[in-house]
């Protein structure tokens, strides 16, 4: 399948997460308007960073004078997940020029990566993830705009209840992983257990992520060594 066809497939199969991204985008637009960010600044932020979790993290510190160091650190910490998404795609972006890979990695996105693992082998993964990313970006920009323009409609509503929407969407992706995996899900189960233990011990979020990922990595290595004898 050509890169173009794979990109179109990515766009066509992105409907599910287009909608959930749309909800977050509207919430981001509302939150950005509520703390006084100008509309075009919020749109520029959505277009250039394209990260729901990172943008919401930045909003928490958005007051004069802007604490640039704190914003940078918090955006980095919530974006560390991207490092792992990029690593997961290492063997799947072959056959493209280095320049294309560097440019198109801008659109790397969680649901695109998760769903790319479920596609037939002949699908071009870089094209697929990029097509998926184009769709997510469209959803993200349109919904940010709508959120900015409709803030007054939501002023009376308590949107705190939908804070948990992020974990819900993440759970859908995790289920796709669980059901699509060809190897036992032991690394993910142990990662969750370690995350829970570290959370109970009162560890910081980045330590929970580090401990959890390290556990998953070691477990996966043990699995691989066992498989290769």
């Amino acid at each position, binding site marked *: 399948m050509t890169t173009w066809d794979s990109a179109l497939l990515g766009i066509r199969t992105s409907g599910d997460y287009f909608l959930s991204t749309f909800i977050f985008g509207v919430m981001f637009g509302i939150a950005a308007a509520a703390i006084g960010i100008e509309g075009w600044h919020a749109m520029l932020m959505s277009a250039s960073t394209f990260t729901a979790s990172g943008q919401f993290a930045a909003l928490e510190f958005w007051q004069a004078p802007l604490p640039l160091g704190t914003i940078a650190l918090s955006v980095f910490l919530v974006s560390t997940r991207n490092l792992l998404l990029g690593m997961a795609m290492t063997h799947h972006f072959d056959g493209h020029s280095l320049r294309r890979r560097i440019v198109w990695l801008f659109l790397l996105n969680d649901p695109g990566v998760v769903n790319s693992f479920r596609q037939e082998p002949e699908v071009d993964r870089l094209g697929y993830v990029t097509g998926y990313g184009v769709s997510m970006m469209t959803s993200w920009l349109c919904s940010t705009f709508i959120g900015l323009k409709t803030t007054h409609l939501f002023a009376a509503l308590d949107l705190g209840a939908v804070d948990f929407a992020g974990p819900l969407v993440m759970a859908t992706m995790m289920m796709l992983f669980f059901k699509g995996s060809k190897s036992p899900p032991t690394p993910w189960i142990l990662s969750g257990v370690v*995350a829970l233990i570290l959370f109970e011990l009162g560890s910081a979020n980045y330590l929970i992520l580090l401990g959890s990922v390290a556990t998953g990595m070691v477990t996966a290595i043990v699995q691989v060594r066992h498989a290769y004898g």
Partner: protein
Amino acid sequence: MVDPQTTLIAIAMMALIVYLTRMTGYFIGLQLRHIRGIQTVLEALPGCAFMAILAPAIRQGSLSEIVAMACVILIMWRSNNVVIATSVGMAVLLFGGSYLDPI
């Protein structure tokens, strides 16, 4: 009120950081790809990151949030339908809180 120039600097900084995290992981992977069996290990990593976020979120969730999560997992298990799973989960969050969570 944050001045426009600082806002633009902050946005540029955020964009750069996020883009670098997307690119760096891929290039770290390229340095490791010659190791036998590494593909399975690398492909397991995003799921581990999801679990690191999900497990604590469920642990500290309210009853309505746990019920919403259970609905999502169940629907995904049975149907793989993200739209229905997310919609039902969101509906439980929005309308179930007043019934399920103690005031």
